[in-house]
């Protein structure tokens, strides 16, 4: 009985639902259409207003962030961004040989480097400068110092782009209103960078403040140090064009020599922290990333062994048999049989070097050899460079003295001309400075390194332009590519004469 009642009730309810459904159908449709009209608004541009976005970003924060991004990119060992350790044959790879064999296109590496420089570094510097310029509360001297420091850093990054790609967007770059910037002639850009640098150096005034200690992660607000940095950069930029334009090189190097770094204490080190996410990128790449397939390259390892270099155990660890063995660059290497980068390299708080005394002293030695009027002797600068390198890697004075006394190291007795001597020692000292290692190899052409096994091209003298530049800025890309003589990695840039 109970069951039957339930069925009956259910039946009735079901029928009612069915009948009412049809009649109500039209009503539902008209109501929803009505809602559709009512919910419309004539002015939809208000939706573009980002009401929850931070209204202002402090200029100092943008400055620190840009500096950090620069340091990150220079330090990184990511195969998506920075394969220069393989190009200079300091490191080899166990398994994946793509980047090692000069395949930069698959992972769009030039795009990451380019985008990193323009979007993540230069754009932050530009925005920081804009805010500082508009800040009426800033004291004039402080403002001038901050703007000069930003300008010097921009010169650093643009010069890196010029030496990496050749012609680049410069005068029309970083303008959101112009999505098709033209590429400017590399040499013209370079000349402008040199004059910007000279002018910014003159604007730095140690009597006023710069960025605060917290904002200036490199020099903690010291204008005196920024002045040394800028002069060191000027020596470097001068030396880069020493082959192509010796006159301009000489002027710049001689003007900047006296004001450049006096010791390793002046180095431009980005201070990383020991805790994530503000660690050295190598800590993330190697330790956190769990990558054990970055190996010592035979080319560098054999030199370290031959010269009994005190930096050997500081640069690399031992293989499983307790020996120092380098892997062949471009070939598949056995993990257990090959040395890996030392734990010092991947230390979380290892500083990111932006510019240092070691490279400056090599430049000074070279400048003497080229007849530029700088202080000291080539041999002394060469000695200083090597000694500072050994000590900053954790070696001792005694290590350095023993090493420098070797006839194969001593500037007076080492083999070859000055280019060979300086080239070899600079290549060793620029370990973990992969971008500059590449620059010096192209500039000095010493030491002569063979191509990696299975190389897909000749030695890369530049990066190809990012793949998506062809899609995004096709007309200007095509013009630039044909102007520099083809968008190939082998194309030599204006300063690379030999």
């Amino acid at each position: 009985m109970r069951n039957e009642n339930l069925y009956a009730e259910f039946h009735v309810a079901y029928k009612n639902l069915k009948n009412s459904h049809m009649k109500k159908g039209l009503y539902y449709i008209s109501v929803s259409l009505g809602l559709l009209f009512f919910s419309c608004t004539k002015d939809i541009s208000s939706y573009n207003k980002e009401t929850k976005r931070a209204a202002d970003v402090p200029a100092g924060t943008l400055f620190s962030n840009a500096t950090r991004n620069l340091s990150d990119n220079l330090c990184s060992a990511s195969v998506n961004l920075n394969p220069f350790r393989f190009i200079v044959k300091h490191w080899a790879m166990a398994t994946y040989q793509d980047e090692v064999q000069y395949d930069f296109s698959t992972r769009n590496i030039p795009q990451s480097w380019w985008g990193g420089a323009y979007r993540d570094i230069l754009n932050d510097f530009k925005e920081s400068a804009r805010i500082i310029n508009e800040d009426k509360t800033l004291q004039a001297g402080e403002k001038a110092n901050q703007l000069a420091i930003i300008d010097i850093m921009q010169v650093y990054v643009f010069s890196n782009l010029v030496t990496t790609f050749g012609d680049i967007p410069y005068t029309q770059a970083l303008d959101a209103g112009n999505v098709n910037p033209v590429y400017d002639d590399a040499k013209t850009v370079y000349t402008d960078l040199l004059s910007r640098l000279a002018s910014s150096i003159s604007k730095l005034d140690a009597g006023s403040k710069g960025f605060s200690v917290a904002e200036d992660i490199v020099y903690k607000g010291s204008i005196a140090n920024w002045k040394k940095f800028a002069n060191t950069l000027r020596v470097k930029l001068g030396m880069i064009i020493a082959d192509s334009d010796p006159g301009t090189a000489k002027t710049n190097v001689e003007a900047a020599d006296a004001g450049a770094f006096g010791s390793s204490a002046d180095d431009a080190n980005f201070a990383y922290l020991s805790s994530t996410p503000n660690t050295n990128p190598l800590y993330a790449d190697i330790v956190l990333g769990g990558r054990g397939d970055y190996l010592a390259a035979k080319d560098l390892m054999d030199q370290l062994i031959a010269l009994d270099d005190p930096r050997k155990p500081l640069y690399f660890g031992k293989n499983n048999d307790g020996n120092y063995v380098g892997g062949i660059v471009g070939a598949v290497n056995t993990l257990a049989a090959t040395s890996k980068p030392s734990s010092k390299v991947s230390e979380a708080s290892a500083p990111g070097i932006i510019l240092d005394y070691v490279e400056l002293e090599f430049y000074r030695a070279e400048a003497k050899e080229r007849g530029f009027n700088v202080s000291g002797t080539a041999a002394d600068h060469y000695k200083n460079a090597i000694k500072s390198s050994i000590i900053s890697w954790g070696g001792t004075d005694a290590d350095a003295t023993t090493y420098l006394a070797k006839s194969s190291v001593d500037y007076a007795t080492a083999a070859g001309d000055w280019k060979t001597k300086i080239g070899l020692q600079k290549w060793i000292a620029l370990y973990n400075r992969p971008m500059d290692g590449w620059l010096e190899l192209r500039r000095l052409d010493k030491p002569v390194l063979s191509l990696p096994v299975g190389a897909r091209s000749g030695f890369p003298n530049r990066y190809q332009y990012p793949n998506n530049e062809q899609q995004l800025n096709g007309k200007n890309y095509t013009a630039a590519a044909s102007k520099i003589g083809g968008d190939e990695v082998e194309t030599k840039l204006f300063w690379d004469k030999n």
Partner: protein
Amino acid sequence: MFKDETGNEIKNILLGSFQGGVSVNASVGQPYGTIQGKTYTMIDPSKPGQVIPWDGVGQRVVSSSGYYRATTTTTNVYGNYNPNWIGGVYNTFKYKNLSLGFLVDARNGGKVWSLDMYYGMNFTGVYPESVGLNENGKSIRTTDDGGGVILPGVLIDGTPNTKRVAIDANQVGAPASEFAYDASYVKLREAVLTYSLPRNLFKRVDLIKGIDFSIIGRNLWLIHKNLPYSDPEENLSAGNIQGMQSGAYPTTRTIGFNINVKF
């Protein structure tokens, strides 16, 4: 297409860019969703010593490494992701209390670019194609002892390529254009087998009009496709960015059971 504030005319809008220099674009004069990237090269007939993009017919240029030389240009068109047509046929056969329904779906045309094939063939060497013997009966994975292969093509001076290369874990050395495939497919999307209980089993319960038991299977059979190892319908993304495969999963096959009680 349109002009920006400085009067520059934009001829191409980048919809998405991917590894290997491959991109999906909206370009003037091309169907929407054109897939572009690097391709093989051939010697420029009018300028010996220079290369132009391969026309699909001539001899491809091999670099001194023995692997194919790709263009520097990434604007070579592989095709576009739009199908010529898509369609399906649904049919049901009934016999006494049994019925069998099935849906066959088909897509004709359109391209899909496979990063999986690009990596598998060029770098990781996990596909069966990277194992085998050459004309000398030696392994193609090493150039030792007469192994390896000679890729058909010419050097930049026009002489035939004679260099043996290994088709191993490292590289086949094919430009990205090699891995653009026809995305057509024919698949048995769905099949339903239904058994309806005879009416006399529940004729005393007048509320129930019928009871059906069904087994439903979806994605049962990929009848035809031109993309190796994966389902061309799989896509990295949707919306504007289509025609890209990266880490494609196999399509999920589902088998379900259904009881349908009609009141």
